[in-house]
């Protein structure tokens, strides 16, 4: 094994001066940059494949209604500074609706205080009625905009009624909906809610 490639070994001896100059320039460029990644993880490709694949369900009117409803809920919960169970300082709760493929599922997202230093929202997700996933499969909580996946908030699996603590650093006002999907499938939205 050699430490660096030998330029002569790479290009041979029969180059014109112009060709040699050009290949030497490229040789120098290649030596000046770090190695590219060897391969792209399948998990990234699968996640990117899902971008923009959801069917838009939010009309402008529905978005406005949802934003109004969310603002009202937020005002109620922020105003009372409500504390919920298990010591989680929930400032607002968003109930999720079940999709057609999981009619018996339910879920809610409790939004905690936003950490001023990091900008992270603390969140507690409580889901029930979703099947436990075997192997490498898992669920993903997304923020969606215009019916499309726009920001991943974390992955999880379930076993019966399950509580998961997550964080997100997004500006929630820029998104329309919370969505739970199953990764690795073109599955419909399992649970969703307006932000």
């Amino acid at each position, binding site marked *: *094994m*050699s*430490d*660096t*490639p030998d330029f002569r*070994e*790479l*290009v*041979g001896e029969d180059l014109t001066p112009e*060709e040699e100059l*050009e*290949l030497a*320039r*490229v*040789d*120098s*460029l*290649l*030596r*000046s*940059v*770090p*190695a*590219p*990644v060897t391969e*792209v*993880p399948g*998990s*990234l*490709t699968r*996640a*990117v*494949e899902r*971008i*923009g*694949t959801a069917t838009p369900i939010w009309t402008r009117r529905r978005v406005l209604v949802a934003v109004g409803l969310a603002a009202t809920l937020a005002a109620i919960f922020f105003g009372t500074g409500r504390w919920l169970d298990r010591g989680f300082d929930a400032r607002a709760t968003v109930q999720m609706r079940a999709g057609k493929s999981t009619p018996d599922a339910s879920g809610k997202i409790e939004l905690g205080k936003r950490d001023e*230093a*990091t*900008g*992270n929202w603390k969140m507690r997700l409580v889901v029930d009625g979703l099947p436990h996933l075997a192997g490498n499969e898992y669920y993903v909580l997304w923020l969606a*905009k215009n019916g*499309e*996946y*726009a*920001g*991943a908030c974390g992955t999880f699996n379930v076993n019966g009624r399950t509580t998961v603590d997550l964080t997100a*650093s997004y500006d929630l006002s820029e998104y329309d909906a919370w969505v739970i999907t199953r990764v690795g499938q073109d599955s419909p939205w399992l649970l969703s809610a307006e932000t």
Partner: protein
Amino acid sequence: MATAESDSRLIERVGRGDREAFEQLYKRFARPVLAMALRQLGDNGRAEDAAQETFAAVWRSAKSYKAERGTASAWLYAVARHAIIDRARQKREPAAEAADEADVRAGPAERAEESWLTWRVHSALELLPERERVVIELAYWSGLSQTEIASYLDVPLGTVKTRTRTGLARLAGLLEEVRA
């Protein structure tokens, strides 16, 4: 870069909601984006998240791309940088501080220059035919000699030499105005 127009066309098609163009763009830029994220975040999981956010941002904002304002590669680079910096801020770590050794020694301007140069070279590599890209990557970053590459790929030595030289010549065209 000779393929800038082609990249531009892809982004414009993505802006019109063309999934096929988006997939092509992903295939072309996934490795450069991931490599940049890995260098700057230093963590596989966070780099993957940043890469995912980059392509989500590309899908969302491709319609805002204007070819007359700059090359497609520069636009994609800016989108990726933004996503990576956002991801770094979530952990209160400046994006550049998790960079590799060379980056740590350099000042901000040099780091930016190195990052851009790396992006250009990695992006150009993605445009080579697979057979040429593989031999060049093995030659420059695996430490294998041409003979060892021939053995590794189970092809004649002459084939390795031809592919290497053809690939380098093709890169010279793709990176016509780039200097180390």
